[in-house]
């Protein structure tokens, strides 16, 4: 069996563009709004979600034939919650400052619809390898949008990129001002809306 047969490839690449969890399925919006004021928090959040998605998808795919149907949602949640607690503990031990900035939003990964959605819709029906790819693919699809939103919000809202000042002082001297709206939640809605629009235009998707 080839490592990447057609179906596996599709499991990985679909969520990147043509079936992106945020911009097409419009899932996981809450955290996409909350942690995208700055690039660094968006990047760490994306990595955390990729990890949780990949591991929980794989574990659930391995257990899929053993999980009793009646309690499957609770089982999925326990696996996901354990992974989230684990990543939170790792952040607190190794990246304390970052974990302070992300505060409650790491814990809120548990309630991110993408993760339970993938566990229920994909990992319960597919093997572990394909589920792993699906998890990573969805994680990257989620992270890509998060980082995209964060890029514009940080650039327009704070004039920086990854904490480094991009807008030259001469602009500010000439009367340029950071857009305060961008550090607030409405800024994220606007950017996200524009991204969804642009992507649907590019991917040529029409609502039925």
């Amino acid at each position, binding site marked *: 069996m080839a490592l990447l047969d057609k179906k596996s490839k599709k499991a990985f690449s679909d969520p990147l563009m043509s079936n992106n969890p945020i911009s097409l399925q419009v899932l996981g919006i809450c955290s996409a709004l909350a942690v995208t004021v700055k690039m660094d928090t968006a990047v760490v959040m994306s990595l955390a979600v990729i990890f949780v998605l990949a591991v929980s998808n794989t574990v659930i795919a391995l*257990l899929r034939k053993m999980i009793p149907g009646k309690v499957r949602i609770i089982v999925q949640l*326990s696996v996901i919650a354990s992974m989230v607690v*684990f990543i939170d503990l790792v952040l607190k031990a190794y990246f304390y400052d970052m974990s*302070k900035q992300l505060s409650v939003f790491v814990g809120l990964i548990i309630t991110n619809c993408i993760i339970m959605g993938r566990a229920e819709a994909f990992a319960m029906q597919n093997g572990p390898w394909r589920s792993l790819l699906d998890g990573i693919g969805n994680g990257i699809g989620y992270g890509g949008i998060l980082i995209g939103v964060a890029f514009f919000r940080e650039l327009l809202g704070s004039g920086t990129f990854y904490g480094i000042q991009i807008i030259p002082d001469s602009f500010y001297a000439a009367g340029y001002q950071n857009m*305060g709206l961008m550090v607030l939640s409405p800024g994220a809605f606007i950017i996200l809306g524009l991204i969804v629009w642009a992507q649907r235009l590019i991917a040529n998707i029409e609502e039925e």
Partner: protein
Amino acid sequence: MHSNKYTLIFTAVLTIILGFFVSTADSSLKDMREKNIEADIRKNILSSLGFKETLESPWTNERVEEIFSESIIGFVVDSAGSVIDGKNPKDINPDKDFKEFPIYKRVSGEQVEGYSIPISGKGLWGTMYGYFSIEPDGATAKGITFYSHIETPGLGAEVDKPWFQNNFPGKKFVDPNGKLIGIQAMKGGVDETSPEAYHQVDGISGATMTTNGLNSFLYEGLKNYDPYLSKIRSSLSL
């Protein structure tokens, strides 16, 4: 269809495995986490007292420990403003000891360079914890830091950003008659021409609840230390 017995056994086993996994992770990372928290609090005391982290000597946990033992003295004062002998800030449980207040002093040789007191109180979403530091005159703000809060990123969370904290140094928290007045963060910024500007700083737009909370708990916090600080003030004016 699985039987009820199978379902019960399956969930029990899964719970035990996951519980074991999480608690192992928790206990093996506990020491590092607690060290980070401890060092983070000390970092806050240091930066509230004007120490600066530089690129050449970043504040690793060890470096923080070193600076702390070199130039910080911690002690405890009571509500009458007297130093309680033999008590260490570490002995104080803020949830129990309401009448005893820890305070940190920055010294360089015999010279006192500032005091730092813990402050805490309600913001919008939860309790905010930080340090407020005071010049040796006992009347002027030297700095402020926060090490724990759950305020909204980009709004209330701006309290831990330099632009906000840099407003504090030089502001007075007592009025010209020596009465405690606190420092108020003002909505829309400080009118520098106002006679009240000496105890006001720029507020955070969009974070009214956070700044109102800060204004009131900073005042309440200072009130606890006012007997001690007023002793310093009167000893200096004599």
